């Protein structure tokens, strides 16, 4: 503004002021451009994530069943009734819920730990130069590109106790077992979904770890070897700490993905996997969409989502330092 020009520094104002305005204008224009680019994504997230989640949360306080379904948001308000029924009242729905929580915990523990542990072990084996290693690595990725639906169908046939390949290997060909185990019914049925899940998850874990291992400076291992560190010590004190950020990320996504597993048990067992293999998601879908207990299903979904929030908080606290280092 010319009225604010200092008589002692007229040129400075003339020179400095216009670029500042141009810069400010540029920044503003740039901000608007960025906002315009980001806006569709935010809108999309709002529409497909936030609003429905809020809607689901709201419905969890409603008596939404087959008689009130057409009212949807106008269905009778029952406050914490659905939550009380799930958590505190003695009823078969609560029994089923507790069973599904237990099964899901076992499923997540074994699936995630075996996927990460196995993926790391295979990555260590693959991280070397040898003939045909590229072909082997490519083949190792095969299970990962098979859709979950197909994995479940394939394994369903493999587990058949009378004609399945698993029992043929265990009983007919190798003689490891005398009797044919029944995999798809009873307590074994949880393992019938855990093992295919691990089988499908291993390649991705291996790929991530392999990338980490190949990016690792060789000098560290060479220096440690010169100092007398054996393979185990080098793994324990060099490889593992450097892979911690990768382990952290896989742990985060692995637990969330496994907790929300639906396709494999659903395809293998239908909407009712039975008490030994019923997971949270199959329980929610069955009670909501087959039994029309939408309020109950919404409440279980909210509890599951809260459990995942807690998990993310724990995870963040545990791995915050690694992420900052990474």
């Amino acid at each position: 503004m010319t009225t604010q020009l200092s008589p002692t520094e007229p040129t400075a104002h003339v020179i400095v002021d216009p670029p500042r305005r141009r810069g400010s204008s540029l920044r503003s224009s740039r901000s608007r451009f960025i906002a315009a680019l980001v806006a569709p994504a935010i809108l999309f997230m709002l529409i497909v994530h936030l609003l429905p989640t809020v809607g689901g949360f709201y419905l969890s306080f409603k008596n939404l069943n087959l008689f009130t379904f057409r009212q949807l948001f106008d269905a009778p308000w029952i406050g914490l009734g659905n939550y009380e029924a799930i958590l505190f009242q003695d009823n078969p729905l609560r029994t089923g819920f507790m069973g599904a929580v237990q099964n899901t915990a076992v499923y997540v523990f074994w699936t995630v730990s075996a996927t990460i542990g196995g993926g790391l072990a295979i990555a260590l084996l693959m991280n070397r130069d040898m003939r045909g290693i590229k072909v082997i690595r490519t083949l190792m990725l095969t299970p990962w590109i098979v859709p979950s639906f197909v994995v479940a169908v394939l394994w369903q046939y493999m587990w058949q106790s009378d004609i399945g390949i698993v029992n043929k290997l265990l009983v007919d060909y190798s003689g490891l077992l005398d009797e044919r185990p029944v995999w798809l019914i009873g307590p074994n049925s949880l393992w019938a979904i855990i093992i295919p899940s691990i089988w499908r998850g291993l390649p991705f874990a291996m790929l991530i770890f392999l990338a980490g291992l190949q990016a690792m400076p060789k000098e560290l291992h060479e220096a440690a070897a010169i100092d007398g560190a054996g393979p185990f010590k080098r793994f324990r004190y060099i490889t593992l700490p450097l892979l911690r950020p990768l382990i952290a990320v896989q742990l985060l996504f692995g637990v969330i993905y496994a907790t929300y597993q639906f396709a494999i048990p659903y395809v293998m067992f239908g909407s009712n996997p039975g008490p030994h293999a019923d997971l949270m998601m199959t329980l929610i879908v069955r009670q909501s969409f087959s039994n029309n207990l939408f309020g109950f299903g919404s409440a279980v979904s909210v509890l599951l989502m809260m459990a995942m929030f807690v998990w993310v908080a724990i995870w963040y606290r545990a791995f915050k330092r690694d992420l900052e280092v990474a």
Partner: protein
Amino acid sequence: MSRRIAVALLAIAAVFAGALVYSGCGGDDDDGADSGTQGQAASDIKPGTTVRLWIMPNGPQPQEDMEAALTPFTEETGIKVDVEVVDWGVQLDRIRNAAVSGEAPDVTQAGTTQVPFFAALGGFEDLSGRVEDIGGEGAYPDGVWQTTQVAGQDGVWSAPWFTEARSIYYRKDVLEKAGVDEATAFQDWDSFRATLQAIKDNVPGIQPFGTPGKKAFDLVHHVMPFVWDAGGAELSDDNSQSTINSPEAVEGVSFFADLVADGLADPSQLERDGTQVENQFKGGKIAVWMGGPWVLGSIEREDDTNWVPAARKNVGVAPMPAGPQGDAFTFVGGSNLMMFESSENKNEAWEVMKFLSQDQVQTDYASLLGMFPARTEPQQSYGESNGANFESVFQAIQQGRTYAPIPQWGAVENAYKERFGTILDNAAQGDASDAAIQKQLDEAAKEADGLLAQTTG
């Protein structure tokens, strides 16, 4: 934001966010019904109108078969019919969503046990004013007509289309090798067990009996006849409470579970669904199986390669065995046609339903599917003019029973199915004790009572 948009957002969330919200659209409270059109004369029919019809995969070529069946109708009336096949796996959700949102076809096929649920949900046309056009109650067997009703409510919510009843399907050649007279092989529970035992003892290489387990959507249809035979019932007379844990029900379920525990039923079949077990029968792996008349229809189909020659040419059908009280019940099911309340072509839609309710049309279409016509007269003539096996199925339909026509039945059936599946799983592991069965049925009854207590408040 309108409710319609809000609910559509929730539908997207069910897929993307994992948050459980219902995926249907919030329907208008305006029901769109035009009761004034009920019973209108044929002059109100507009040729050139297209009626949208949803059917389920009835038979190997459902679309082509249905379109061929409707060709004479279109030629005669000028009404076109747009047929869409909706898979059984998703039909409940799609019909429910359509009824609630109003974004629906004009007519849909529905399983007979689903009709009360859909009727209670709303969004369907009460056909009371029209059904006299197709003969009304008098044109159908009692059990079949019952499937058009909702207990305790007025109204006729569907038109019966085709029907089926579960019977015993067996291999004549295997029975002969086992030294069992097929005329008495399945007369009652004792002879049923004795027949299976004789097959087990005398005919190597084939399992005596096979039943699907928890994967089968129709497991309850397999078990309930034994409960009914023993004097039990699925619900109390007023449909307010479950009676599935009564001593009679335990007796019926025990009989069935013992077949597994005693090695007369192949436990590995419990890992399969209904179709897979059916294919085991066709493939010559099991000698006796409980199924529906569609199997008879498939015998003549050379494109059904699941059959092995020995099985294809030796199928016998017997009515279900009589229980300790001398009764021999079976489950009678099938499909009905329902008209959506939101239809803007109700008169034309009704013309389609009327056409599909004609005796000859029902007979022709049911024979394509291996089912039976729903109407009394064509059902009887079809059963009595196609040989002994068809006559056995016709007899089975006459002995048939279906479940209480209440809106909650689908959910109650799911609760029963879950526990029946667990009972059979336990039996395969060697535990078919009455105590174990009672425990599961107590849980089933408790869950069912909770479902029956659902209210609008």
